[in-house]
């Protein structure tokens, strides 16, 4: 470690926030860009599975709530791209990497939303898992990221409650509605567990990220916490978690549960999820189709600027 690196690490250890113009190790910057960028991309791509039900939301109230949620997510994307920009990478560069497949977004969004209860399950489980990941990141060492997380977490927990409320209505509804709720839980349970990433023993960058306080807890810790939180919620709904091995472990004071099928995780990561092509394809199409729009706004701004300048008499 160079003296600079040591000083940096000591600041992190003391719990100081690192701010944009301050010195930071190149690896720290790169890891942050990857992590914040992926998170931003996830917010954007995450609009799609929920957007799939906006036109079919069952009541005006539910439609409004879902629209507000999707709007929030786009807003989160915006904060996060801004946070990433403080590290010297532009939003367009990050998007280019998303579109060319060089950067990822959360694999969970490669699963389809097939019935209305899925919108509940996404809020309850997916946002729930996301919050579990994000709450500790409010204390992350990088200032802009930490501040973005504080703002985001507040909204996300609101979304999670709304999702749980949908599940509640469905679980207490007609037999068909309850079946949809159970079906949604069946399909989203393991993918939600995968959201915490592979077991720490298989996770490459974990140790360094934790030292830098870019990562606060291990994947397995968070996954356990998520299970412990979610099981009683499912019980309360009267729904069954699709895991025959799920059982309370008195000794450890937490639930035992089955690992997700990691081969599925790697399949989805490799592009073979149910919706990978559709999701990325939709984003690339939106971007390409919108090129004329973005070009026109730039052109107009230049014209307006030129007009402004020529309106000011040259100071001779």
């Amino acid at each position, binding site marked *: 470690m160079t003296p600079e690196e040591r000083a940096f690490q000591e600041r992190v250890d003391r719990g100081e926030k690192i701010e944009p113009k301050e010195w930071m190790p190149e690896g720290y910057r790169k890891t942050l860009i990857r992590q914040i960028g992926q998170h931003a991309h996830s917010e954007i791509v995450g609009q799609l599975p929920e957007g799939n039900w906006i036109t079919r939301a069952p009541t005006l109230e539910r439609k409004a709530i879902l629209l*507000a949620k999707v709007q929030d997510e786009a807003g989160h994307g915006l904060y996060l791209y801004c946070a990433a920009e403080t590290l010297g990478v532009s939003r367009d560069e990050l998007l280019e990497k998303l579109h060319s497949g060089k950067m990822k977004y959360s694999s969970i969004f490669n699963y389809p939303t097939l019935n209305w209860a899925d919108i509940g399950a996404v809020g309850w489980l997916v946002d729930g898992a996301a919050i579990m990941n994000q709450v500790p990141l409010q204390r992350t060492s990088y200032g802009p990221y930490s501040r973005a997380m504080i703002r985001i977490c507040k909204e996300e927990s609101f979304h999670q409650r709304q999702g749980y409320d949908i599940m509640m209505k469905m679980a207490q509804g007609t037999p068909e509605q309850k079946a949809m709720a159970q079906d949604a839980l069946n399909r989203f349970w393991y993918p939600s567990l995968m959201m915490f990433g592979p077991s720490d023993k298989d996770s490459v960058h974990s140790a360094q990220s934790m030292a830098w306080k870019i990562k606060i807890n291990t994947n397995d810790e968070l996954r356990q916490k998520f299970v412990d939180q979610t099981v009683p919620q499912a019980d309360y709904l009267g729904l069954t978690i699709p895991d025959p091995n799920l059982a309370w472990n008195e000794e450890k004071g937490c639930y035992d549960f089955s690992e997700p099928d990691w081969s599925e995780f790697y399949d989805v990561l490799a592009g073979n999820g149910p919706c990978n092509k559709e999701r990325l394809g939709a984003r690339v199409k939106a971007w390409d189709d919108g090129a004329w729009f973005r070009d*026109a706004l730039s052109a107009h701004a230049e014209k307006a600027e030129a007009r402004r300048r020529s309106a000011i008499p040259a100071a001779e």
Partner: protein
Amino acid sequence: QAALVEFLLRMGDNTLILGHRVSEWCGHSPVLEEDIALANTALDLIGQTQLWLGLAGEIEGQERTADNLAYLRDAAQFRNVLLVERPNGDFGNTLMRQFLFDAWHHVMLTALQRSSDPRVAEIAAKAIKEVAYHLERSADLVIRLGDGTEESHKRMQASLEDNWSYTGELFVADDSDVAVAEAGIAPAPDSLRAGWDAVVNDVLEQATLKRPEGTYVHQGGKRGIHTEHLGYILADMQFLQRAYPGATW
């Protein structure tokens, strides 16, 4: 009173169907800021729908809620103008349709704030703040895109021509319009024309777009004769309520 219900349905169906169309863009717009703005516009419109249709159901007195009206009528019972159900087309077309509607919506709500019916005036007072912002935004974008690149100019002019013949319906009165106008509940539709023209002409001029000369007016929506598009909108929108009647969501 029938005329008042009819009037409220027209207001609420306009916002419902336009909100639906706008929401179709979710996650597909050209820049993130537009995703946010469009979701926000759709959200406002759906909120206004709840108020207009809620009041319509209340006055009708047959225990129909805003949701009943939105989800359990078929196309022939819908009262929105044809303009709002037209397909989105490219993003420029969506913005042009929005601008042409916003300009009308704003003069309409301005007048409705002075409605003789306080419930109508109250909704209008609430909605106009949102719609003033919609208009500001859509007008600004029409100007920037009209006076942007050659391509954007061409697209916006084409969108203007495409939507133009659907704007006239906003100003055509039928018996029901006459009745609510005489009762001081709502302005006569053609009394809004001058205000609309002023806004539209000003914006089009700044946008370097040419106001179309065509005077043909497509109409029918206000009396339930729609385009073929509405049926498909409703098939999606109403699926869950139709497939699971009586369920609580």
